[in-house]
């Protein structure tokens, strides 16, 4: 497959354009990335940045390698980057683009549903409630379902969830 630089797509990164453009591909981010280490390089922040610079829409918005969803947002790459590239913020944007394209790990949608419905991403299980009791910890309050829904509606989250 021959890849093509998509100059139009590249403009997607306007908000981050300065920091993205500054990348000179030294690899300081990837060499120190714990996820990259764990995945044996399947996940590689440098390659994602390179794909952004080249506007490789296909690469970025499908779930092919390099997969932006594996980033754990630990910020080590941002810390190390000698050129001040805000990698994790750029990755957030890439994730949004993925979602828009309908290509994202289903687990994230399930999580979103959970927040919409129960007000938390990880609902309290009975086991946890019992353990808290045993430890003498106060009973966890559940957030107001309607308030969360209002918030999510007003911020466009629900609409987005429905559209994808």
């Amino acid at each position, binding site marked *: 497959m021959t890849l093509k630089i998509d100059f139009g797509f590249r403009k997607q990164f306007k908000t981050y354009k300065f920091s993205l453009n500054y990348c000179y591909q*030294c690899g300081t981010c990837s060499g120190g990335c714990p996820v990259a280490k764990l995945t044996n390089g399947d996940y590689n922040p440098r390659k994602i940045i390179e794909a952004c610079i080249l506007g490789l829409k296909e690469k970025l918005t499908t779930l092919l390698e390099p997969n932006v969803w594996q980033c754990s947002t630990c910020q080590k790459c941002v810390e190390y980057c000698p050129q001040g590239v805000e990698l994790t913020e750029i990755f957030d944007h890439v994730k949004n683009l993925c979602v828009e394209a309908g290509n994202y790990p289903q687990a994230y949608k399930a999580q979103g549903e959970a927040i919409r419905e129960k007000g938390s991403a990880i609902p309290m299980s009975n086991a946890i409630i019992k353990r808290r009791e045993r430890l003498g910890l106060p009973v966890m309050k559940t957030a107001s379902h309607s308030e969360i829904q209002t918030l999510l509606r007003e911020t466009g989250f629900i609409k987005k969830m429905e559209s994808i």
Partner: protein
Amino acid sequence: MEKESSIMVIGGGIAGIQASLDLANLGFHVDLIEKEPCIGGRMAQLDKTFPTNDCSICILSPKLSDCYRHPNIKLHTLSEVQSVSKKEKCYSVEVKKKARFVKEDACINCGLCIEKCPTKVNDKFDMYLRKRKAIYLYYLQGVPAVMAIDKEHCLYLSNLDKGKDICRQCENVCPKEAIDFSQEDQISTFNPNAIILATGFRQFNPSNIPQYKYAEFRNVITGLEYERLICASGPTNGHLERLSDKKPPKKIAFIQCVGSRDIKNQKYCSSVCCTYSTKEAILANEHDSEIQSFIFYIDIRAAGKGFQKYIERAKQEYQVNYVKGIVSEIKIDENENPILYYENIASSELCTMTVDLVVLASAMIPSDNIEYLAESMGIELDEFNFIKTVPSEPIKTTRKGIFVCGACKEPMDIPSSVTEASAAAAQAAQYASQNKGD
């Protein structure tokens, strides 16, 4: 041609030396101001120089002697500029000469005092890798070849204000009665018609890059430390060995752009690291043909005459490997062997590599007194504290009659420094002839 004008050159490294020699040969009187006890500067600390690998001190040494012997040059060592003001047709420069406590014309450099001196001090010239005494010769081939006493560490001098009168062993042993504890710092005023700044550079402290653990790991050293370690007259007599266990390394990593091309530290490129690291790797292999080197880089910058060929030779003949990709972090194993974590960008592989020694190509930064000097001289610095020039006038500072050459205006290699030094001599001569004090 006899000229009445005099010119002051500040900084006694290769740039200052060359500028002084050229001006002296043009018939000007030159006052050469050097803050250390001997002239020679950074070049004296280097082992060899690229791309010909001639021994640095071998090609510098004759210039030091020429400078010392030239009837038109007056050397002022241990001296620093205090203030500068403009007079009619010249400047008025106040220079503080720190007390050497040794009579320059009497000392014969016999070394008896050094033997007797009881106080050991970390040697700055040898990048603190060796001890020297409180009375010392700045370096073996140094000019002038006379001792100096380090006031801070000298037992006698440092206890004097406590009312104690102790030691004075050097004084007792000196065959020439050259020790003079009564010397005091002296301020003298000079009236040069023009001034050349050649204050050079210092090395960026890599502790500012936390992931390299320079301060913590003994086998992670800087380029200048490496130069001293591999130099025949250095702390190990030229035996390349690790600081942790004195073992000779077999695998060395050279990391480029340490503090350079880095917006949190020095935004600029230090110009010479690609080639000097190549040189250092070649030297390692010359010492021991089993040594393998790895140079981690972003862009290879070898545009000078013969530099590209030098790099080709390093690859083909000296087992020097160039790895595109900067080392992200360094850890160590139980034997203090540095472990490097990096991505090999050519193959996109994430790698670790265990080596015996890491040499950091630390950025070149302006010398520490430059702000004070610039302020007292009324010249502008650029955003990095290098002396400001414009491309069309690479030798002029922002003040008339004050010129600049060498690494105090931008990181540069020896040939460029020498070239600029001669250029500065031409401009200062031109200026001084047009603004004579008559």
